[in-house]
């Protein structure tokens, strides 16, 4: 047991709260770099949760998954984002279409809705309410970020937050997917990020802005 065991218990009991915190903070974040930092923090919380589960359930594979989460989502992706922000020399603002106050209220509503949706299921699948609600809240928040932020970079970030949510939901309900699938998903994310990065470069090259709300010439 010892120190590691205590840390594990603390993490497992409180990580949902931290995740809700990051959600609320993401809702009010005004700068892209802040949002990226918050995403990194969020991923770190999830990585910690993976390690804790691995320790508690004695799943050696899960350590690898945790390491992957840490390497990709905490280190690689935020770094790539910072690089992009630097290279694109774009405005730092996320260009939200809702005011921060509205965003907070919407984020709160999302959290409430997640609890409401989970409530009826908690008993049925023997999963604690809080982590599952956090996972669904993450998914919805990611979607909300994609909808309400006009910068193409923020759309990528929203997708990543959404993916965090899916990952967490899988982890909680089934103690993680098989390692191969997990690795495949990470590969997907990297490829998606690469593609979206290339596209954002192209968008900013061609249109000299990164505001997706102005890209409406393609409609039929």
């Amino acid at each position, binding site marked *: 047991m010892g120190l590691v065991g205590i840390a594990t218990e603390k993490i497992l009991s409180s990580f949902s709260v931290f995740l809700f915190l990051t959600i609320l903070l993401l809702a009010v974040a005004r700068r892209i770099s802040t949002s990226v930092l918050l995403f990194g923090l969020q991923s770190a919380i999830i990585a910690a949760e993976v390690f804790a589960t691995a320790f508690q359930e004695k799943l050696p594979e899960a350590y690898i998954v945790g390491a992957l989460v840490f390497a990709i989502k905490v280190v690689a992706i935020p770094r790539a984002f910072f690089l992009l922000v630097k290279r694109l020399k774009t405005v730092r603002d996320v260009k939200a*279409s809702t005011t921060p106050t509205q965003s907070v209220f919407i984020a709160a509503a999302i959290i409430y*809705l*997640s609890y*409401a*949706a989970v*409530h*009826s299921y908690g008993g049925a699948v023997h999963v604690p309410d809080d982590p599952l609600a956090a996972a*669904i809240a993450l*998914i*919805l928040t990611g*979607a*909300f970020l*994609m*909808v*309400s932020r*006009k910068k193409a970079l923020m*759309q990528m970030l929203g997708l990543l937050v959404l993916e965090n949510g899916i990952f967490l939901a899988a982890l909680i309900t089934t103690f993680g997917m098989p390692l191969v699938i997990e690795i495949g998903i990470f590969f997907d994310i990297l490829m998606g990020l690469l593609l979206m990065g290339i596209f954002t470069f192209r968008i900013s090259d061609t249109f000299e802005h990164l505001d*997706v*709300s102005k*890209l*409406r*010439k*393609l*409609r*039929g």
Partner: protein
Amino acid sequence: MLTASTGALFILLLAALGVAVPLILIASRAQGARRLAIALILTAGFAGCVMAVYGFLGQMAPRLDLSWATPFPFSLAVDRLSAFFLLLVCAVTIPVTIFAAPYFDLHYSERRRNWTWALFSLFVLSMIVVVTAATGFAFLVGWELMTLVSAGLILIEGDSTERRHNVFIYLLMMHVGAAAVAACFFLFLPYSHGLDFGAIRASGAGMPGGIRAVIFLAAFVGFGAKAGLIPLHLWLPRAHPIAPSPVSALMSGIMLKTAVYGFVRFTFDFLGGGPWWSGYVVLVVAAVTGLLGILYAIAENDLKRLLAYSSVENIGIIFLGLGTSLLFLAHGAPLGAALALVAALFHTFNHALFKSLLFLGAGAISNSTHSVNLNELGGLQRRMPLTGAAVLIGCCSIAGLPLFNGFVSEWLTFRSFLAGSALINTKAQIVLPLMVGILALIGGLAAACFVKTFGTAFLGRPRSMGAEHAEEAPLGMRAGLVLLGAGCLALGIFPGLLLRPLVTLAQALLPGAGVPEETLSIARIIPWTAAIVLGTGALVALFKRRERLARTWACGLPGLSSRMEYTSTVFSKPIRFVFARVYRPDRKVEELPADQPYFPVSISYRSVRTTSYERVLYRPFVEIIISLAYRVRRLQTGNIQVYLLYIFLALVSLLTFLRFQR
């Protein structure tokens, strides 16, 4: 065991033909291959006839299960009802094929001809599949194939914008109809353990009344669209005239009948009679269809459009019989139901014969004169005597003259209406005798219509150069016409050939029905009548005094010209005048030159029917759909975030739904 295997062999032969013919045609451009293909089609038709006759007489019930080769249960079987329609398909296919061989040769280039033949054989195959299908999927496959292949056959003749528009309307209405037909099948699923016809039939009785009513209505709409019941007939006068004549003959002669088959199969075989009101619904729609169909037919000057509208009318007569049968069934009088059903089915067969005969006749006329406009024809009897004789037989049959086949079926329909007076204390007692009047009116108008058709096309003097230089059709075309004409006469004089097995069929479909006395009596009387008429005719011919020939009095003018003749427009004028409320014509007289009203050089008269189902029934419907589409289009903003918002909202609303579900 033996009979079953021969049956499977027969069906296999048919199926192999359907696949082989297009293969031969596409693989090889040689003349010999095409001849072989035509011979194969004829053989298949003949084999189908033989099999159908045996099946119809109840001597064997061939069955072919192809489920092992298809992803869904697919099997063909020939019971009595199928056999009757199989006989209809094959018996009409043979003469039409004989006719089509020289017709396609004369009208199409090498390449098109191959395609036409390939589609032609596929078309026949699809109709055979429809009438012999024993599972829902087989039926639907045949049904869709039939629509698509016939559309292809129409498009082969050309692809002008107007033609495409017409084909589009055809396909559109057929798909709506097919959706209704598919719905019929799937509505059975909760109660039946599969879409096998046997399973469906077994489940038919135990279904709740509401579902039965829905199935009946869906079948009526789905098959009604294919059959061309007004107001679902919109495609019919558009699609039939623009198809090549032999194809029109197949479409009008057989394809419409597959709809009758489907309707009989569903309402009589599967459901065992519809809800109590079903007979009334069918009767009213059929009466409207018959009356309006023949009224529109009379007003037409284009021979093929006229024939197409006349098909609408005949479908009306057939459904009058079916409606009467349903009515009798609902009132628990299977004997009357059997009589009406026999009448309807017999008329179905007769119409297949004489309508394909008339369409082939139109093909022969257009082949010789390059026109099917009645106002440009005339005097063809002297130039095309055999074609004329065959068309005359067709006209007499369709007008319902005694000794021709149309008479027998219409007579039986009349008798079934009159038998309705036996249904005491029901509305049917009043409704059915009323139908006598309507059918009489339809018959009279049909007679007028075909007097006009034959008179303006074949009698008098030619009204155009084309008609003046017309020559008799080639041998193959004449052979096809003569075969069909002989069929009309044979069934007209010996109706018992078909009536007796039809009565057995009706007894199989309607449990508890006896043998309707009327069918026996007419089958007994007609041959004797024919003998007396022929004998009297022969006697008169023998003892006739010599004819006196004299010139027609021309009111003192030096000679008669074709401009003095009754045209088709003029002939139908009185009827159009009497029924002006139906046509609501838009008349226009133009005199040229306009500044000299008393000395016109030319006067042209135009009268166009303005009753338009498009404007009244279809246009509002289409407009609603288009305006809805525009409204939906506003969702399509082109903004990524709005699209994401849709997904987000869908997600949120699903979660909310989940929350409040229990």
